[in-house]
């Protein structure tokens, strides 16, 4: 118990003293996860809209597929891309294994199904009159889809935040595809795993705190925005 409190105290010192090694690691996490999220979100929202509004054969199968992908462990995603990107693999030519780009690829694959599945279910809940109203008022299919997305913007934002929560906190894919190289691909989670295995808890705890603080800030921000927009439910009007 004493060791825990001692390590926590040390962790706070590391955080507050602006330890460059520590903030480097935080920087890698952010760079990789934000890049992955920015690349994954537009196609994911487009896919969700197609699954929700368009009617084509195989649509239900695709919905089930994306819901299944939610449950795939990060290490399995890591393993898959490891095999694809390794020298002998089909994409070995790209020389991407153990780079930040490889980590980004892995995290895109983790983020995409979350945004697709959550955004799809949000879009499906939209009143069918909304689409007809937009169309009869002269909106083309694209503008109508954009209007409908505006109707559920907070649910869509929540899907993006959930995806960010998953990829900033995942360790399996980042470890296998990034290789935990100090100053390059070592991020918060792989550093925690390594430091803990070495018995150096302070840095692990400090990084864990950063993650928790981040999660809290994001969720509090979302909650605040949703609270501001909350109106009387429609059935009361």
């Amino acid at each position: 118990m004493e060791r825990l409190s001692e390590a926590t105290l040390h962790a706070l010192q590391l955080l507050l003293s602006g330890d460059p090694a520590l903030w480097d690691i935080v920087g890698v996490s952010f760079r990789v996860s934000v890049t992955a999220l920015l690349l994954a979100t537009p196609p994911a929202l487009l896919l969700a809209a197609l699954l929700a509004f368009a009617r084509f054969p195989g649509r239900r199968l695709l919905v089930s597929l994306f819901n299944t992908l939610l449950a795939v462990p990060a290490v399995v995603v890591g393993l898959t891309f490891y095999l694809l990107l390794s020298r002998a693999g089909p994409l070995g030519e790209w020389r991407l294994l153990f780079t930040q780009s490889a980590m980004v690829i892995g995290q895109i694959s983790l983020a995409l199904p979350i945004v697709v599945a959550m955004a799809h279910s949000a879009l499906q809940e939209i009143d069918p009159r909304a689409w007809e109203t937009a169309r009869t008022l002269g909106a083309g299919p694209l503008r109508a889809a954009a209007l409908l997305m505006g109707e559920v913007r907070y649910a869509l934002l929540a899907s993006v935040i959930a995806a960010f929560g998953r990829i900033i906190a995942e360790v399996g894919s980042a470890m296998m595809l990034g290789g935990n190289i100090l100053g390059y691909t070592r991020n918060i989670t792989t550093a925690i795993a390594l430091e803990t295995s070495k018995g150096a808890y302070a840095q692990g705890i400090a990084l864990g705190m950063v993650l928790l603080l981040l999660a809290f800030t994001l969720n509090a921000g979302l909650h605040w925005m949703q609270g501001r927009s909350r109106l009387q439910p429609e059935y009361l009007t």
Partner: protein
Amino acid sequence: MSALQLRDITLRYGARSLFEGLDLDLHPGRCRLLCGDNGAGKSSLLRVIAGLQPATRIRLLDPPEQRPRRAARQLRRRVTYLHQHPYAFRGSVLANLRLALPRGLGRATRRARLDEALRWAGIEHLARAEAIRLSGGERQRLALARAWLRGTPFLLLDEPTANLDAAARARMLALLDALLADGRGLLIATHDPQHFPAFGRDRLRLAGGRLGLDRAAAAPAAAQEAG
């Protein structure tokens, strides 16, 4: 503005046929009532005429078109559909009206048109109100203002007086009068034709997938009131 002339309107879902070979004309500045029991297919027919649901078969005269998807596109340009319970988008009444403005107008014109629409529907005092908080009658007027701005020559209204009290109904009817005076053609689906005493002369009845002149309409209005 030319009449909207529809021939051979047919809608089937798989083996189930909702209606077959209906002919219907709408004329600028004139109102027709579409009567029929609940479930007779009035709403489906309105959706087809509004181009929101492609017909299985349809023929438009002037300009001629009989490919269902193209016909739907043409109809969407000429017809606006109002739901029984109009949908209000998130945001203010003004934001809802903005959706119905034709694209490519200058800033000043947009402003003027929006102000005009608010005045026309008598909802100036609600311009900044959250649209989804409006009462049923206010929401109907918002929907009419949107349709007025959209400016199509024909309007289809699905049970516009359902759930409105007498005062709200009177306001609604006054706006419909204004639309007719403006030269718009109206088709009003209702199972309560008594709500439209001034428009009641031209009644159609949809029953069993067939469209005919309403027999009740032939009887004098006084007899109906008494009954």
